[in-house]
């Protein structure tokens, strides 16, 4: 990995310059422009963020349609919309799609777009690896979904795909092969992205941006990346074992040969429980940005928020077996994991109380973003509390594999994760696109979502406690399931209507934007650095690299104290913000190779399933692209080098403002 990102050839000598003008490979190094090709070769973290976001929303619709099919099937007793077999595939792919193809990439979209902006960097540490992450993710997502066409159906083993159900004997179609290989490709994308973003957070901070001055959103994402870093290899092992079993007849999960199917459960949940925090911590980060902004108060207990996030990250590794209380792993394990699960509620509770304390006494503005953020806190608390009820092992024995569990994790993942990310969309939309989402349509979107969400998943608590099993494809009349199931189905269509409203909002706000006043750099009077640059953000982010003097530095640029200690505005956002007019800032050149590397991976996947010749072609494409990438000249030799004034400004500026740089190094690990 080192040699592919490190440039092998220094420009400068006559030899290598001529080399740079005639690059190896079939593509000349693209120079950036405005057409669609530029999106394929972009290495700009903002564009990659947008690519992530748009693709994630597309898969939100795909997973949403699957959810509606599930709810239609269960709306009335003896549902006949789907066959039992197709039903298995639909709920499996619903789970996989929503987790791996919607929430994770939507969080990645925010991470890509805002981490460099919040820490005062011009891009991530490895711009081309960043593009690689996206293209590999997209190739994995498409690969996974082609199973509907080329494999005769999706995976049918549930999103956690327990052995031996996932074996060839019980799941003979190729769906599970696509699951095993597709998730490996997606995992590779997340791993590359995690390494990249960790290095970005640790290494690319602007002068004075110590770790304890980083915005809380960046902090939560940093923790998320560490969770990804350590969780992904574990599921990678599990998926390799599954793939070897299915494709090469290994014996990992063959019970007849003495294998232990619990191995899968352990490996899966060692990944799977941190995954819950991977989903929800980014949303916590969004909420922790939105609530202070719209309460006009600093975040209450910043340090506690950071360390409770870290505590959640650590403790998240010690609770995985609470997914396995009924697997017969013995009373000592059950007691230990029961206790650790109760404990992990503590740092989460700290966060909830700190959000409440932030709002307490604040001057609250209930914008749509704020509404979504407050709803996130409320709904996540409900989900968290039902989670604590699972930690009580005897009760858990009753609840396992019932709709009570389904209700719980949707309150956590939809109520915590998705609502939080929607808050982020409304909050940062003007920063990304240069116009607001309509607050009026947004209000409808919010209330419909909230009501629909509670109508859908609230009744599932009752259904579960009544004994309705998770994943059954139909139920008979007379168990008392009819009313609540119908309610849930109605609720799910309200969520669908709300999502349609959101899409309408996106379209309408874009259409109306030319007739409305532009939002300016800082429409919400917010606190972190991304609001100190114009909206939409110029391609080079910062005209001059900012000097950070305190936490919430941007806020303190705008506000100071008068002699009586009263907070007064010292500069408007418009005055204090950068103009975005710098020229000649030298940016990383685009590249087609990340896309090209990613194209080979699904071919390898198809090859392993159908015909190894495909795999050979795919491997050649990927390896060839990696080498072409390594040999690609780092800079476009024709790009402008004439004007370095703006770029050099920040070096001089660091002297002028006499910032205590030693501060920035003190807090680094």
């Amino acid at each position, binding site marked *: 990995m*080192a*040699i592919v*990102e*490190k440039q*092998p*050839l*220094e*420009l400068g000598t006559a030899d*290598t310059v001529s080399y740079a003008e005639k690059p190896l490979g079939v593509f000349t190094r693209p120079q950036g422009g405005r057409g669609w090709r530029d999106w394929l070769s972009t290495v700009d973290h903002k564009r990659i963020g947008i690519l992530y976001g748009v693709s994630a929303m597309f898969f939100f619709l795909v997973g949403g349609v699957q959810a509606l099919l599930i709810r239609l099937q269960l709306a009335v007793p003896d549902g006949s919309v789907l066959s039992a077999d197709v039903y298995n595939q639909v709920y499996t792919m619903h789970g996989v799609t929503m987790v791996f193809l919607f929430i994770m990439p939507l969080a990645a979209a925010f991470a890509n777009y805002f981490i460099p902006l919040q820490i005062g960097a011009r891009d991530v*540490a*490895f711009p*081309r690896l960043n593009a690689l992450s996206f293209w590999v993710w997209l190739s994995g997502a498409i690969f996974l979904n082609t199973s509907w066409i080329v494999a005769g159906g999706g995976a049918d083993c549930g999103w956690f795909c327990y052995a031996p159900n996932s074996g060839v004997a019980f799941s003979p179609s190729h769906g599970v092969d696509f699951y095993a290989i597709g998730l490996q490709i997606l995992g590779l994308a997340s*791993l590359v992205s*995690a*390494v990249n973003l*960790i*290095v970005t957070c*640790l*290494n*690319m*901070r602007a*002068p004075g941006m110590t770790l304890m001055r980083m915005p809380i959103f960046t902090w939560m994402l940093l923790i998320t990346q560490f969770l990804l*870093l*350590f*969780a*992904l*290899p*574990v599921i*990678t*092992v*599990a998926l390799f074992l599954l793939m*070897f079993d299915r494709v*090469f*007849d*290994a*014996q*990992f999960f063959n019970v007849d*040969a*003495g*294998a*232990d199917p619990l*191995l899968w459960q352990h*490996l899966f949940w060692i990944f799977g429980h941190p995954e819950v925090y991977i989903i929800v911590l980014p949303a916590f980060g969004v909420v922790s940005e939105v609530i202070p902004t719209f309460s006009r108060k600093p975040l209450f207990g910043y340090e506690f928020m950071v360390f409770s996030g870290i505590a959640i990250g650590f403790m998240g590794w010690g609770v995985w077996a609470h997914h396995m209380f009924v697997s017969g792993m013995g009373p000592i394990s059950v007691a230990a994991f029961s206790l650790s699960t109760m404990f992990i509620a503590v740092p989460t509770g700290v966060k909830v109380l700190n959000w409440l304390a932030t709002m307490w006494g604040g001057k609250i503005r209930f914008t749509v973003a704020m509404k979504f953020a407050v709803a996130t806190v409320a709904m996540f608390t409900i989900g968290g509390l039902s989670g604590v009820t699972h930690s009580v092992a005897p009760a858990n024995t009753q609840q396992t594999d019932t709709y009570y569990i389904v209700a719980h994790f949707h309150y956590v993942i939809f109520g915590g994760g998705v609502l939080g990310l929607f808050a982020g969309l409304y909050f940062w939309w003007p920063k990304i696109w240069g116009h607001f989402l309509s607050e009026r349509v947004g209000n409808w979107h919010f209330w419909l979502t909230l009501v629909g969400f509670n109508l859908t998943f609230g009744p599932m608590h009752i259904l579960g406690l009544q004994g309705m099993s998770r994943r059954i494809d139909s139920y008979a009349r007379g168990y008392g399931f009819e009313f609540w199931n119908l309610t849930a189905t109605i609720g799910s269509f309200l969520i669908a209507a709300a999502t349609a409203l959101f899409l309408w909002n996106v379209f309408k706000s874009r259409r109306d934007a030319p007739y409305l006043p532009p939002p300016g750099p800082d429409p919400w009077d917010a606190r972190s650095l991304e609001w100190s640059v114009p909206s939409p953000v110029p391609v080079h982010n910062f005209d001059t690299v900012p000097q950070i003097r305190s936490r919430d530095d941007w806020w303190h640029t705008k506000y100071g104290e008068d002699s009586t200690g009263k907070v007064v505005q010292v500069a408007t956002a418009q005055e204090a913000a950068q103009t975005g007019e710098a020229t000649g800032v*030298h940016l*990383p*050149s685009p590249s087609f190779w990340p896309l090209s590397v990613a194209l080979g991976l699904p071919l390898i996947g198809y090859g392993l399933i159908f015909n190894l010749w495909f795999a050979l072609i795919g491997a050649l494409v990927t390896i060839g692209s990696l080498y072409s990438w*390594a040999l690609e000249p*780092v*800079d476009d030799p024709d790009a402008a*080098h004439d004007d*370095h004034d703006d*770029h050099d400004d920040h*070096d001089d500026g*660091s*002297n002028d403002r006499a*910032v*205590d*740089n*030693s501060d920035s*190094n003190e807090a680094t690990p």
Partner: protein
Amino acid sequence: MSAETATAGSVTTSTVDADNHGEDHGHASHATSTGLSNTKLAMWVFLGSECLLFGGLISTYLLYSTRGNGRTLPADVFDIPFTSVSSFVLLMSSLTMVLALSAVNRGEAEAGRAWLLATALLGAVFLGGQVYEFTAFVREGVGFTTSPASSAFFTLTGFHGVHVAIGIVMLMSLFIRSVNGNLNQRNSETVEIVGLYWHFVDIVWIFIFTVIYLIPVN
């Protein structure tokens, strides 16, 4: 790093390295927040992830080491003296890797190339030993599909072997760069980073050899 050094570093960057500060944020002369270059930090972070990968695979083998499906266990056919020799060869390659880095750091391109090649060759000898070992085991009735134990054994050691192979490819890439005159004191950090990977793969083998080969299964 004091404020003065940091400033001096970036000033140097904008003069000496004027054509090159766009993309290569990892260049040694850039001041980063931690003082480590981006690429080196990325390698450390990546190796952290690799620990969990091998952790999962080693755990799998430990769980399955005695589950032979009524057939011969891998542990019954281990040839400890042979594997000890190939382990020694692999560990020596870490020494040559250090010598390679030291030579490149001192600007001795010839010696650097020789030690890089020696490291790759030692790695290749280890891989050859593994191929021999695998074929011998298959002849003795322990194949990949024989039992959970054998599947776990071949998967674990196979993953390690693939890591060694990737390391050899990286070493040979460095060798070719050096032949082309593109490996010198200025960018010797690349050698250091490949070295980090190589030493990691060696350390993993110490674990595998101890836990899998030397500790007997009952």
